[in-house]
């Protein structure tokens, strides 16, 4: 094979990877249940905003110091509050659904063997699935954060934010920090997605894979809440998921988030590797 031919082959392979990725995204975001899922995520943050508005109207002046109470003074905080609330259950659940569909769903529908006829290797196929899970995590977190900002601004108005350190930052700076929070949450959710991807290669039942992944995240949260197990906490995937709140300090406190990103990365690499080891030699019978 001469050099130009080889480069054409490489380009073709890259092109097929890209095409597969785009079609995967179309598939993920075209599914009615995933669209409904996004609406549910948005609905939850709206519900939180409305509940806070009602409580503000009923008890004007009462104000606590936590992030949820801060929403009453500034709608932008609803973006942060939405992430804080939904990271515990609903965002991981959404990622679990996507991960369950990724391999087990295709196997269940019998479409996996057709997918394997596309001119990409199995590891690339798995990488496409993993990237789509990452995009899904990002979109989920974005919908919660941006939906929170829009709903919050409509209900409470927007203005300069008061950080946890008592200083004031402008709206632009606040939105930038919210975007960083979204990215941080995305990395954590994508790491959970890799656990889900691995589980998804073990079964042909998407529901089983989804339930197992959601249970893993819930179990990790429960373990993280048991004070007697504090020696274990630094090793749990979810332990530093809420550390994005450190973005609301002045100056921003990065230590916990950096460690959190390393933990996410380790979980992601290990479980993507496990998924690949399993998927590499898997007999695709359906």
């Amino acid at each position, binding site marked *: 094979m001469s050099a130009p031919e080889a480069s054409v082959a490489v380009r073709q392979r890259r092109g097929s990877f890209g095409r597969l990725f785009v079609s995967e995204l179309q598939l993920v975001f075209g599914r009615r249940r995933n669209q409904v899922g996004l609406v549910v995520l948005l609905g939850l943050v709206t519900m939180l905003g409305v509940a806070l508005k009602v409580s503000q109207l009923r008890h004007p002046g009462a*104000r606590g110091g936590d992030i949820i109470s801060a929403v009453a003074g500034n709608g932008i905080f609803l973006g942060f509050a939405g992430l804080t609330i939904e990271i515990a259950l609903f965002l991981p659940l959404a990622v679990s659904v996507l991960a369950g569909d990724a391999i087990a769903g295709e196997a269940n529908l019998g479409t996996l063997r057709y997918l394997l006829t596309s001119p990409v290797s199995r590891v690339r196929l798995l990488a496409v699935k993993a990237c789509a899970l990452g995009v899904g995590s990002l979109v989920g977190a974005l919908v919660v954060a941006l939906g929170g900002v829009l709903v919050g601004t409509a209900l409470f108005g927007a203005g300069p934010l008061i950080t946890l350190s008592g*200083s004031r930052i402008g709206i632009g700076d606040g939105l930038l920090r919210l975007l960083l929070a979204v990215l941080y949450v995305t990395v954590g959710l994508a790491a959970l997605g890799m656990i889900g991807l691995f589980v998804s290669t073990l079964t042909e039942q998407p529901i089983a894979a989804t339930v197992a992944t959601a249970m893993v995240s819930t179990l990790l949260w429960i373990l993280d809440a048991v*004070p007697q197990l504090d020696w274990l906490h630094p*090793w749990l995937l979810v332990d530093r998921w809420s550390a994005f709140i450190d973005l609301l300090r002045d100056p921003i406190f990065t*230590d916990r988030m950096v460690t959190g990103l*390393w933990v996410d990365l380790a979980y992601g690499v290990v479980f993507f*590797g496990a998924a690949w080891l399993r998927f590499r030699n898997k007999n695709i019978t359906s």
Partner: protein
Amino acid sequence: MTATRGAAGRRTLWLVAAGALAAAGITGLMARGAVADPTLPPLTPAELLAKVAAADVDGMSATFEQRSDLGLPTLPTSSLPDGEDLSSAIALLTGNHTVRVWVAAPDKAKVALVDGSTESAAIRNGNEVWLWSSEKQQAKHATLDPSAKPTPTATPMSPSEAITKFLDEIEPTTEVTTSGSGYVAGRAVYQLVLTPKDDASLVAQVRVSVDAQTFVPLGARVIADDGTDAISVAATSVDFTRPSDDVFAFAPPPGVEVTEMTKDSAPSGTEKPKGDAKEPTVHGTGWTAVAISPASTEKPDKELTTILESLPEVSGSWGHGRLLSTALVTAVVTDDGRVAIGAVTPERIYAALAER
């Protein structure tokens, strides 16, 4: 076929290696300081203390982690009597906390407790002092009197004289050595080791880590008799560049309640607990001192009684009471309401109670 399988095998190997590397990276991140000790020129305790006293840095920003394992049962702090101050003090003593510290000059400093999604800070900027609590949405402010000079000590001493005097004073009860240099926050440190000589002390050792370059203390550990770290405070990251002045500027955000502190209402730390008419007596000195509060006729409230009744009963020539024994602290509450507390073995507490 064999070629592809070989390639796949190699890839497996790479993958396993990557996974192992990631796991190792995390382990390393979690257990920093497990590397070989640095070789530092030996210093005697007096030399080390002299260098600490002479330490001069432009400023620093650091993060400290505090861990406590006192072996105390996890108490529902909300149910404790005596209001917020006591329960927050107990909360500080137990569990783990993260503290950020900035220093730019003797009169420019900020300490912030950054646990969970709240922040409490104390800021000194020139003559202005602010206390901030994000949880209570409260700011307290005080203006220091610029004319007030620090009260001069009765006999002015040079630092080296003071150190010699200090070492002489603790010498009878404590063995002071420097040893086992290690790493704190990735920096080589000297360790000053204080070992109580009295066996009755529950404190096995106090180790203070001092940065080998700047001679700024970066951590301290109180090791209990059973070998556990009862209390440890250590820097996790430290930077010796002068922090920007913005860090020390504090203006209370709008809508926040600001309390002016005057001399009469000094910060709660220096306040005496209310209703404590009689002073406790102290038996013994140094590490094995035992404080005994006088008998009180006041009935403890219900929750406290419940907690007390769950403790083991003890009795002796001194009377009868309940024993709270932890890794670092022993306390006995007698039936007549006396409370004896000290970092000593229960036997020493009984002896102190019998002395009366």
